[in-house]
């Protein structure tokens, strides 16, 4: 689960991280008022659930309330990687002597919370990873005991900080790792962590992603979920235990199993088609779930045809067939169906489809070719 910078800043503040004052504005007038109240040069920053807002013109310095209003005017409504800016924050601008990248992530390889730091702050970490991987300092923290002070100091000295700066860095790095642990975050990032000309460290940006599997035990974090993170169908799918990702094509896909669903998309592309979605209806799906999944797929007006690809293991083919038939009969919108159905109770399933006048394939690649021909015809 992704949250906005302003939400992450509040979590960071609560964790004792040095986050400068900032407030949210939804209109240029609000931005002006906040800048007037802060009465210092400010930064106006787009709040979007994606990176790259700087390059898209979503971050602007403003010396006075007039400039802040003008900046907000330009930023609100911007399209940043497909997200429309609806909110900005107006934050105290800081004098910057040095910019550091600092992030804590749950790391697959080391099975730990990994602290990553680089003296090349302000740039996205994947950029640094590409251009100068040696500039990234990594240290693995034991999530049970947190980052040790000596680990933080070592990173601080490697960043070239002096001792008063290392002491601040020690506290910040340990709190950032603890934030990951306490919030079940998969990532907590400060980019840039700046050093002012006076030698003070400040978190100028804030980013937190929460482990979706752990949201259930953080009711306060669950409330931070932003509607724009998901499309309507994505939300409906999540609430029904279905994995669904909306894509740009016209072939609706219903599959049991994430790996099989991914490879169906691959095979569609390989054959010149364009999938409209990723959908994993889950293991052991019953007729109701299949019907709901079909509803979600058909909610996308771009869908011209639905391709059902089921390999029955725990999932029973007859259950799937019943759901498919029910959906075709009950849903208002109908599109052509291509079905591939094999595995547990395959015979019974095929029988049900046949009775409803739906033909089925045994081979996945065959089914894909028919589907692609169906939409391009």
């Amino acid at each position: 689960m992704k949250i906005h910078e302003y939400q992450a800043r509040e979590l960071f503040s609560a964790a004792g991280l040095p986050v400068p004052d900032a407030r949210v504005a939804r209109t240029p007038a609000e931005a002006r008022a906040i800048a007037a109240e802060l009465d210092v040069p400010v930064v106006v920053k787009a709040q979007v659930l994606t990176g790259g807002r700087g390059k898209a013109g979503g971050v602007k310095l403003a010396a006075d309330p007039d400039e802040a209003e003008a900046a907000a005017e330009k930023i609100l409504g911007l399209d940043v990687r497909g997200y429309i800016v609806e909110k900005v924050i107006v934050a105290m601008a800081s004098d910057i002597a040095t910019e550091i990248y600092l992030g804590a992530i749950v790391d697959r390889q080391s099975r730990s919370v990994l602290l990553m730091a680089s003296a090349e702050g302000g740039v996205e970490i994947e950029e640094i990873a590409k251009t100068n991987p040696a500039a990234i300092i990594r240290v693995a923290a034991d999530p049970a005991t947190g980052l040790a002070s000596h680990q933080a100091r070592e990173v601080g000295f490697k960043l070239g900080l002096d001792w008063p700066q290392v002491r601040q860095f020690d506290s910040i790095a340990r709190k950032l790792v603890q934030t990951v642990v306490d919030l079940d975050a998969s990532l907590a990032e400060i980019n840039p962590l700046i050093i002012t000309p006076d030698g003070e460290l400040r978190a100028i940006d804030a980013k937190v992603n929460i482990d979706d599997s752990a949201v259930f035990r953080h009711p306060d974090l669950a409330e931070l979920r932003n509607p724009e993170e998901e499309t309507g169908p994505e939300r409906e799918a999540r609430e029904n235990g279905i994995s669904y990702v909306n894509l740009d094509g016209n072939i609706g896909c219903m599959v049991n199993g994430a790996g099989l669903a991914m490879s169906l998309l691959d095979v569609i592309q390989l054959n010149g088609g364009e999938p409209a979605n990723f959908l994993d209806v889950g293991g052991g799906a019953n007729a109701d779930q299949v019907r709901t999944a079909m509803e979600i797929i058909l909610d996308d007006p771009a869908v011209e045809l639905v391709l059902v690809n089921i390999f029955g293991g725990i999932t029973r083919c007859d259950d799937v067939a019943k759901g498919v038939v029910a959906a075709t009969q009950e849903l208002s919108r109908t599109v052509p169906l291509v079905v591939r159905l094999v595995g547990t109770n395959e015979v019974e399933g095929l029988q049900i489809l046949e009775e409803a006048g739906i033909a089925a394939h045994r081979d996945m690649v065959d089914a894909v070719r028919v589907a692609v021909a169906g939409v391009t015809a």
Partner: protein
Amino acid sequence: MSILLNGDTRVLVQGITGRQGSFHTNLMIEYGTKVVSGVVPGRGGQVEHGVPVFNTVAEAVAETQPNCGLVLVPAFAAADAVDEQIAAGIDLIVCITEGIPVLDIIPVYHRAAAAGVRLIGPNCPGLITPGDNVKVGILPGQIHIPGPVGLVSRSGTLTYEVVQALTDVGLGQSTCIGIGGDPVIGTNFIDCVWMFQDDPATEGIVVIGEIGGSDEEECAEFIANEVNKPVVAFVAGRAAPPEKRMGHAGAIVSRGSGTAQAKIDAFRAAGVSVADFPADVARLMKERMQG
């Protein structure tokens, strides 16, 4: 021969009276697996599918001497269940449960590693050795036949797809393992490929990867250096958009890393044949094993 499982495997099922636990215990027993005990706190003394149920793993171990534990309990209780099996001395643990908070599984992983316990999963379908009629987990037994191919995969149904294709061309399986679709899992590709390389009954190895992480790349390097048996791979997710979680918690192209193409390239560079679509794995393996 095979890896991890054999005719002496004695399975304890944690969560045996639950909907999933009961259903799959029955299927495992039907397939031939020796399920010796179940554990559900508060249900000690009951019997499920002829299997005695205990309140704690420690009791079940003392009474029934299992050497393999299956975890089929809800996500909020699953890490604790794995930990209970580690503490009770079980040294092969298969955790099927999906949706466990990743920070719950990390300390348990390290405890397992320190205790020399092999943890498979979580969020995996388990493993099966057709030649010994033993399966631990939810893999459908009927599509498998005994034979020389070892298979390791991050995905469930995709595995069945490939297994069906192998079986259709007459290539049976020594052992098939689903290692799980979560970001942090107990056993990775290298662990399994290593075991298959050492297993005399395995003559060819199938690796089924997907987007996210770099396990496939590391496995490719390992194969290049250490494996002389034919290896065929398939990697799902070439069409997946970045930054979107594709079903599995671990299946995400994040910040430009973990793409399918990088994994496919790594496998090819290691001399691994990479299939374009799942069923093609069978054809390629047949070629490699004859060649």
